[in-house]
């Protein structure tokens, strides 16, 4: 990142008008993305609630890994992979609805298999140890399945608005990269090479790459053992009929994400890591021509008292010497810490705003406690729309 990071806001940053997005009937999908621990899930849920209550939209929020108490407050007590209506909302005047669901990665994968193949084949796939491992632990499966579920919800056409929370990945970019990686893997040359011996009568590709392939099988066998290779071949053979389908669906969803009906909302906290991730993601979205609506900067601190940290600390020290003013001295130290934190956060946030001066931003003040009920989500929604 270039430029002085400590200059604060050099120019006014356009502000993100969340209500305009949520009210716009042509916006059908809102994707919340950002690194872990920045309040992505809460932001997604708050936006969905607001869309239902204020804008009368039939909304579904797809959460990936919500905090237990937030999940409970949305009625997500079990992972059943279908949207459930949240009754406790107040949409009497607008007639909106809020539905919520939590992604079940394994079940979504099973559903994909079932839609692409016959029941016998599906049973064979489900029994394969490789499938079992992959459907629950493969890095990238969660992102792929989130995309898949988004595609399913979108295809059903039942919703005015789908709000998606993205998986808590190593990197925010994984949400965009992992599905392609998985599709590439399932569709890949290597897998086809492996599959070649298992295909009866098929034209073997050995002739083309004999040398490297022989080394390859030897290595793979050495590393993972012959049994695994057999399981893998079986899995690949069973999945063969689905390859095209997998890739096609991933590509379809990718195109939906590029369309004007989608709005990406970046979520970050004023911490260097989170802001850096947000910048990576913003750059990537523009490369992919995906519509970035703006940045939500969560957990920002403010002070209304115009008294610098230095002056407060000096005064506190003076009060210590005078004696008899302990409470004031400590209150001044509390203020000094807040003033320092505010200044640091602004300089951290400036790293993003200087790199992307055109990206609309909204700051959400740090809440005194975690959000775990509909009321709390409403408060966040108000803060998001500066009401």
């Amino acid at each position: 990142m270039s430029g002085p990071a400590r200059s604060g806001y050099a120019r006014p940053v356009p502000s993100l008008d969340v209500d305009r997005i949520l009210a716009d009937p042509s916006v059908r999908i809102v994707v919340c993305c950002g690194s872990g621990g920045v309040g992505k899930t809460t932001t997604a849920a708050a936006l969905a609630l607001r869309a239902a209550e204020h804008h009368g939209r039939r909304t579904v929020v797809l959460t990936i890994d919500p905090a237990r108490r937030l999940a409970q407050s949305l009625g997500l007590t079990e992972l059943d992979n279908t949207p459930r209506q949240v009754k406790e909302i107040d949409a009497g005047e607008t007639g909106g609805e809020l539905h919520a669901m939590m992604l079940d990665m394994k079940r979504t994968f099973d559903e994909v298999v079932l839609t692409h193949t016959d029941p016998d084949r599906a049973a064979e796939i489900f029994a394969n140890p490789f499938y079992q491992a992959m459907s629950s632990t493969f890095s990238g499966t969660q992102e792929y399945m989130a995309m898949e579920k988004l595609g399913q919800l979108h295809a059903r056409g039942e919703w005015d608005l789908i709000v998606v929370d993205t998986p808590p990945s190593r990197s925010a970019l994984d949400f965009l990269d992992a599905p392609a990686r998985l599709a590439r893997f399932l569709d890949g040359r290597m897998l086809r090479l492996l599959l070649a011996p298992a295909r009866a009568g098929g034209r073997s590709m050995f002739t083309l790459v004999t040398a490297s392939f022989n080394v390859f099988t030897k290595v793979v066998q050495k590393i993972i053992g012959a049994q695994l290779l057999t399981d893998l071949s079986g899995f690949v053979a069973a999945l063969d009929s689905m390859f095209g389908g997998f890739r096609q669906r991933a590509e379809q969803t990718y195109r939906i994400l590029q369309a004007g009906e989608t709005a990406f909302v970046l979520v970050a906290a004023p911490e260097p890591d989170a802001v850096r991730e947000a910048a990576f993601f913003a750059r990537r979205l523009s490369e992919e021509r995906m519509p970035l609506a703006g940045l939500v900067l969560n957990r920002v601190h403010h002070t209304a008292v115009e008294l610098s940290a230095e002056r407060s600390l000096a005064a506190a020290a003076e009060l210590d010497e005078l004696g008899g003013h302990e409470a004031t001295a400590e209150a001044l130290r509390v203020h000094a810490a807040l003033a320092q934190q505010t200044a640091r956060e602004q300089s951290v946030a400036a790293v993003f705003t200087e790199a992307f001066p055109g990206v609309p931003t909204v700051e959400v003040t740090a809440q005194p406690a975690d959000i775990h009920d509909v009321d709390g989500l409403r408060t966040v929604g108000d803060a998001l729309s500066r009401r």
Partner: protein
Amino acid sequence: MTSDPSAAWPARLHVVTGKGGTGKTSVAAALALGLAAGGKRTLLVEVEGRQGIAELFETEPLPYEERRIASADGGGEVRALAVDAELALLEYLDLFYKLGAAGRALRKVGAIDFATTIAPGMRDVLLTGKVKEATTRTAEGRRVYHAVVLDAPPTGRIGRFLNVTAETARLAKMGPIKTQSEGVAALLRSPITAVHVVTLLEEMPVQETVDAINELTALGIPIGKLIVNATRPPLLADARVTQAELRRGLAAVGLPTERGVVAGLHAEAKAHQTRRAMEESLRLELAELGRPMVELPLLPEGVDRASLGKLTAALLTPR
């Protein structure tokens, strides 16, 4: 600084985890610096390709190579390593099968990417395997590293990451991967290892800390300390603050006493006390886990190379 940090931090492999955003990378770096004090050598390892160490030390991205990244008090040094699963696999193959150029050819055709991708858990075996190798490496009869500090995956993934045998046993019933993962599993369950969990005094990180400790305990992986990061000084602990009192105090040192300032300071003091009460109850919740706890101060200037020493000092100061 205390005389011998090893007394308080007896393990040789320190695995540092925590919820995203709790500052585990800076804690891991501070610990690596502390354990290197007094002329020792430590290795700081990252495995997620985030380049968090390079970012913290303001250096170029780390290669898959152990490099000196900082010197510690009393002539010690910290080296850093970013483990890359693909390169670890190539290194491993080279070691056992003398692949040489063939290995590089395999990489070219995508075979290595393929091999590290197909077997879930395989990446983790390779990553932890490299950490094990560094921890146990000797040269001329002496350990190369006094201690290894791993900036590990976050709490949500730590159980799976460290439970390497279970993941690979599902797939590899025999062969070198199985042998390798068993070796790693044994090390991770021995007193050589300690997993430290970094948390903030906030609800979700504390909840994840509790979950991770239960999970690791069930897996038989030794847990070290709870590291409470970014704690605030205990200001206004049990004082009742009134606006009248603030006004008197401000006047005594010639600060403005108009309403906005007094009411503003009063509101900030109240908010601080509310948060403190919540932090206190979270602190109790953590104490109930019965693990040794270390508290690190919130650094108002942010954590960078220059301020890291303060965390190191706090880590090494016995309570």
